[in-house]
Structures are given as structure tokens and as C-alpha cells.
């Protein structure tokens, strides 16, 4: 890599950090005289009010502003937009401490611009499952709906949701979409691998037991590919005559370990998205496996 670039970048980074030092201290100091929750609310409240004013006028809200001092017990709630990320939820901020501020009364309802929170608690992303039907479980914003394609998940009043989906062998990518009442949307994608239990057809020496199995070792040749369609070659050693499965979300293959205990298989992943790494599992029929990351780098 270019040393000149590194030098220029490091200088720019140091100067930017230095410029932030003094200014951020001011803001940090302003938050140091109350409990953290109150501090943030106190610091942010005037800013939020201003934001509601400015953004409101920008999107056509009619706002009535009456300058006043708010007493602790009568602080009005201010609905504010929060960060647009897959991990945030809509919320309302109420100043809990006496703060000189401005009361804002909106003549039209506040607009909820925050996407609903959506998480998947089970199964884990990348999990390998042996059941054809799997129940996906997660949490979303209470009142939101969750769909997987055309299928609607059951969502309880606390936002806990669940839905059973049928898997196909290999990689399965499930996309869950949550919608809140305001129409905001959050999508989360999870990939699970369905590997049906192998009906073990033991190699010729059917008396072989798990402890007598030969060594299993798998390797990926490249880990990445610039050619289209992309591929990798997996090789290793295993029990002679046993079956080797190579499984990924974008391509799979099987081969058999030869009489000398070696295997080699070229697996194409034609649908692999450019520059997005994913896991490829190489597994033998006895359940022993190795995982490798693969990334398609077209044009590099």
C-alpha cells in the first residue's frame, strides 16, 4: 500500500482529532452536573426543540411556539426522531429535570420517522440445522408486524415474534421485515444451513466406529476468486470411501474420499455477491467439519 497515502491520512486524522478535543469537552462538561439520564436529556432538550421547529417547518408541520420555563412536574413530552439504523427504535424523550426551555405544541401529530427495532434471537446467523422446519424467534417494537416473504409472523403484545419456516438443503437466507404503524420498515437477513441427517452408509469396513475413523482435515485453496463464475477448490483427507459435503449459501457440492484417504472438489458459487464474504462448510458424513471464508473479488 502507498506509504504516502498512509502518511497523508494519518496527518489528516490527527488534525481532525485535535480539532475535536476542545469543542467536545464543552459539551461533555455541560452534562456533568446531574445523573446521566437527566444530563443527556437536559443537554439535548433545547436542541431537540429547535430540531422539531426546523424540521417541522421543512416538512410542513404547523407549530405554535410559546417561550416559557417548564416546571419539573409539567415538562411536556417531546417526540423526536432517532437514528436511522437497524438497531434503534422510536421513542419519546421527556426532560425530567427543571430546564429552561421552550414549550412546543404541534397542531398536527408528530411523525414517527424511526424504523422499528427488529432482532432475531434464534436460530443464530450461520447456524447449521438438521431439522427441515425451523422456528425463527425474535423481538420487535410492540405493535409492529413481521413478515418473512409472504408469511406473517405471530407477534405478541410485547413485540416477541415467532414463525416456522421450511428449509431446503444447503444455505437458506431468510429476510424478515418489520413494519410499524407509521409505515417505517426494518429488514434483517439471517442465513442458516440445513443439512439433513446423513443416513450413514458406512464404508466397506462396516465395523468401523467413530474412534477408528481416519483423520479428517479440510483446506480451502484460494479463499477468494476474481474470475466469474467464482469458485474455490477444497481438499483434504478423510475416511476412505466416505462422502464429503461442501455447503455454502451460493453453491454446494459433494465428493467421495478416495482409497488413499484424499479428496479434492471444485465448487462454483455463481450467485456469490461481489465483495461480500461468506462461510463455506466442508463436512464429512460423520459430522466432522471445517469452515472457510470465501469472497468474490471481481476485477481485482
Amino acid at each position, binding site marked *: *500500500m*502507498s506509504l*504516502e*497515502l498512509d502518511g*497523508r*491520512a*494519518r*496527518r*489528516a*486524522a490527527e*488534525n*481532525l*482529532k485535535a*480539532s*475535536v*478535543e*476542545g*469543542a*467536545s*469537552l*464543552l*459539551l*461533555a462538561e455541560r*452534562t456533568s452536573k446531574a*445523573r*446521566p*439520564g437527566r444530563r*443527556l436529556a437536559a*443537554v*439535548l432538550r*433545547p*436542541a*431537540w426543540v*429547535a*430540531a422539531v*421547529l*426546523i*424540521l417541522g417547518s421543512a416538512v410542513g408541520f404547523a407549530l405554535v411556539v410559546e417561550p416559557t420555563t417548564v416546571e419539573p412536574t409539567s415538562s411536556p413530552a417531546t417526540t423526536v*426522531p*432517532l*437514528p*436511522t*439504523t437497524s*438497531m*434503534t427504535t422510536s*421513542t419519546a*424523550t421527556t426532560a425530567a429535570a427543571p430546564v429552561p426551555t421552550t414549550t412546543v405544541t404541534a397542531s398536527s401529530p408528530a411523525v414517527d420517522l424511526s424504523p422499528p427495532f427488529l432482532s432475531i434471537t434464534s436460530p443464530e446467523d450461520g447456524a447449521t440445522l438438521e431439522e427441515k422446519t425451523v422456528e425463527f424467534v425474535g423481538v420487535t417494537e410492540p405493535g409492529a408486524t413481521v413478515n418473512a416473504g409472504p408469511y406473517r409472523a405471530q407477534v405478541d403484545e410485547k413485540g416477541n415474534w415467532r414463525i416456522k419456516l421450511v428449509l431446503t438443503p444447503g444455505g437458506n437466507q431468510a429476510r424478515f421485515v418489520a413494519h410499524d404503524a407509521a409505515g417505517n420498515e426494518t429488514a434483517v437477513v439471517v442465513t442458516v444451513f440445513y443439512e439433513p441427517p446423513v443416513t450413514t452408509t458406512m464404508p466397506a469396513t462396516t465395523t468401523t466406529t467413530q474412534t477408528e475413523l481416519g483423520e479428517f482435515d479440510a483446506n480451502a485453496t484460494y*479463499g*477468494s476468486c476474481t474470475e466469474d463464475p467464482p469458485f474455490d477448490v477444497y481438499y483434504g483427507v478423510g475416511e476412505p470411501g466416505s462422502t464429503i459435503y461442501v455447503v455454502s449459501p451460493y453453491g454446494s457440492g459433494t465428493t467421495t474420499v478416495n482409497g488413499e484417504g484424499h479428496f479434492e472438489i471444485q465448487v462454483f458459487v455463481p450467485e456469490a455477491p461481489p*465483495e*461480500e*464474504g*461468506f462461510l463455506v462448510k466442508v463436512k464429512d458424513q460423520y459430522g466432522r467439519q471445517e469452515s472457510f*471464508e*470465501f*469472497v468474490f*473479488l471481481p476485477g481485482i
Partner: protein
Amino acid sequence: MAPTDELVVGQEAFETFYRREFRGVVSLAYALSGSRAGAEDLAQEAFMAAHQRWARISAYDKPAAWVRRVVANMAISAFRRKAAEARALARIAVHRQEALPELEPEDEEFWNLVRGLPAKQSQAIALFYLEDRSVADIAQILECSPATAKVHLFRGRQNLAVKLNLETAR
């Protein structure tokens, strides 16, 4: 009602976290948004979100990664950036608080070029140079695999080198 011990512990932990991470998060917001006025507000917004979810986020291995992910996403969102800027300008008008100081032209040019990169590349570059983050850390913050983070970083540096008329990155 008096807070429970558990709440006090949580709040103190948040304060420590806030003080330790705030400047780094403001730097990241400034680098990625280019807004002298709005960077602090973006950072505050991210910390506000963290505070509201602190019971959950504090249990994460790296709560700092969560805040950086939020601020990195907000900073490259034009809507969020403009909203934060509007808030900050309004606050400056009321409190006469100054925005972050202006950068030297050469540094300003550099960060402008970083912001001109595709979003993930600019985020990876900012995390790499501003915070000396490892590829693994960048991957965690950007919610992608290390290989993907490496690609973003590689592409970003390559594009930057070309834009700066430097020796092409290899």
C-alpha cells in the same frame, strides 16, 4: 423514588462509557459527515440512543462498537446530517456555542475525498485511520465479515490514492 443499586451501577457505567468514547465518536461523526456544526449532535444522538438501551447495550462485548455503528450510519445519511446540523445551528444561535474549528485546507480536502467514497469504504477508512481499528474491529462495527471489511478498506485506499494522485495502492 430512589434508584436501585442496579440502576446506579448502570448509570455510572454509562457515564464512564460516555466520557471515554465521546470524543472518538465525535471525530468519527465529523470525518464522515463533514459537518462542523452537526458532528457533536450526531454523536449526542448516538449516545442518547445508547443510553435508552443501556441495559442491553452494556451487556455487549463492545458497546463502543454499537455507538460507532450508529453514528457511522447517521453521519452518511443526508437526512440525519442535515437534521443534526439544523439542531446545532439553532443551539449555537441560542447559546453562542461554537461549532468545531475548521480544518486545514489539505485535511479538509482529504476528508472530502473520503466522504466521496462509497459509504462502506468511507466508514472503513475513517475507522482505520482515525481510530487505528483492526480489520476485525471494523468488521464488527460495520456488521460484516472480516474479509468484506478488508475489501472495503482495500478498495477505499485504492480509490483514495487515485484521487490524491498518489502512487496507486497495491
